[in-house]
């Protein structure tokens, strides 16, 4: 469980990135942090594994304050996957890339077992002897994921995982997140990819100028015009379509976000033979 209590953070150069943020993420939750660039999203999640320590307030991971623990200690509980795989990969082989994390985090007797599990999980067994630099972009992304998640952390943080990814890669990621989440892991994802978030259907926390603007479901947050406006987000295409249908054609609920919801809402029209 992650508890954030009155957290404020000011960078050494004097810019305040977070102001009095309080929130709680329970075990097994699926949470998206959204908001405009520079709103403090990444700054917030960097507190979860201790990369940043609060200027004011507290961050508790499983009840223990993060300033009492090192990043390495916290990383066994909270895995942080950075946006760009190229910022992580350096080893001669994919296998060594994973060993690096496991050794650093103090896994010894079950190192081999965890390594093979990670290689299998991310479909990397066939590349175990290969250099990460010889792989394609999508494969490197999988190595980066494996190199953090091999330690089997209870909480997973993903910073902008879909940036520059095509739909096949996005769908793989979607499936992966769902699988980990169904295994009971807590997932925190920083993103402004609206359509991806709609598919994922997480709880959404919106940050604007270092404060929590709102906290709620996809249907609540992404269909609220003023929240979208304040947070530089745009409605999902289906939401916008439903709103326009509503204005110009027939009454519909305001909180439609998926294709299936729209079809369901139009059910009467379809059965009635109009459509």
């Amino acid at each position, binding site marked *: 469980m992650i508890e954030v209590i009155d957290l404020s953070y000011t960078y050494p150069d004097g810019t305040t990135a977070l102001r009095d943020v309080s929130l709680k993420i329970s075990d097994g939750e699926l949470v998206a942090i959204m908001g405009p660039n520079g709103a403090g999203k990444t700054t917030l999640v960097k507190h979860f594994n201790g990369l940043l320590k609060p200027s004011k307030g507290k961050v508790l991971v499983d009840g223990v304050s993060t300033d009492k623990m090192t990043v390495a200690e916290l990383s066994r509980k909270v895995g942080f996957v950075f946006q760009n795989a190229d*910022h992580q*990969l350096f080893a001669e082989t994919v296998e060594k890339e994973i060993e690096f994390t496991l050794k650093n985090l103090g896994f010894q007797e079950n190192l081999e077992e965890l390594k093979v599990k990670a290689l299998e999980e991310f479909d990397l067994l066939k590349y175990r002897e290969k250099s990460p630099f010889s792989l394609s972009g999508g494969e490197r992304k999988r190595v980066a994921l494996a190199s953090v998640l091999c330690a089997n952390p209870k909480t997973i943080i993903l910073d902008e995982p879909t940036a520059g990814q095509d739909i096949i890669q996005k769908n793989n990621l979607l499936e992966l997140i769902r699988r980990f989440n169904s295994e009971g892991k807590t997932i925190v994802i920083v993103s402004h990819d609206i359509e991806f978030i709609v598919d994922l259907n997480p709880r959404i926390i919106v940050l604007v100028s270092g404060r929590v603007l709102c906290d709620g479901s996809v249907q609540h947050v992404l269909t609220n015009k003023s929240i979208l406006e304040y947070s530089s987000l745009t409605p999902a295409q289906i939401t916008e379509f439903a709103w326009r249908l509503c204005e110009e054609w027939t009454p519909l609920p305001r909180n439609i976000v998926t294709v299936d919801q729209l079809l369901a809402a139009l059910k009467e029209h379809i059965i009635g033979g109009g459509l």
Partner: protein
Amino acid sequence: MSFNIFEAFKYRRKKTFIHSLDPRTKLALALGVSALSIIFTELIVLLIIFLSLVPLLLIAKSIKEWTSTVKGLTLLIVFILFVNIIFNGLSFAISMVLRIFSLITAFSLFFLTVHPDELSQALIQMKIPFSFAFAMSMAIRYVPTIANEAQTIREAQMSRGLELEKGGFTQRIKNFIPIIIPLIVSSIRRAISIAESLESRGFGAYPNRTYLLPLKMRKRDYTVLITLLAAIIISVIIKFVVGLPPLLLLSIPF
């Protein structure tokens, strides 16, 4: 990590008389003052040189940046002071410190008030090849970008349990490998994409390149340069021909 020392050497956008001078004038000023403070060893003269720079700092509204550098260099200055007191006596020690102050001030005045683009333009007009001058200004442009990237990589590896402070000396050096390699790889990628972008806008394609903002010496530049030249000539004559008046030879008697 503290970058305070560099504060006095980072350009600040301001509108002052000093900022408006041609970079070549300011370069001459920095070199001229340095020459003077090296020619003279007398305490009083060095004090005069240093004090004459203070008004320039005031005009350039750069006292604050200058102070932070001096603070950053306190340790070095104290060290020089003590070593010289022990070996050469107090008077010489203070002279040395004043000389260092003058040198720091002269050059920080230059870097604080000369935009890197102006500097490269000045180099071009001093017949340094364009590609060289451009490379220099681009290096300055990308320092913060690469520094940010290095920080991100460090955090990414810390999130995989990397502890930089762990182990003995050799281990500590090894600890940097997971940071250095990604930094090199991404810098190479970046360099290629920068090159693509330069190439796509005709970089270096034609010998007769236009310079949109050529530097021009103005009346104020000539005024400063003539004053500087006069000061140097007079000083040299006094030092080597006439001899310094007794007042300027005063020193602390131990």
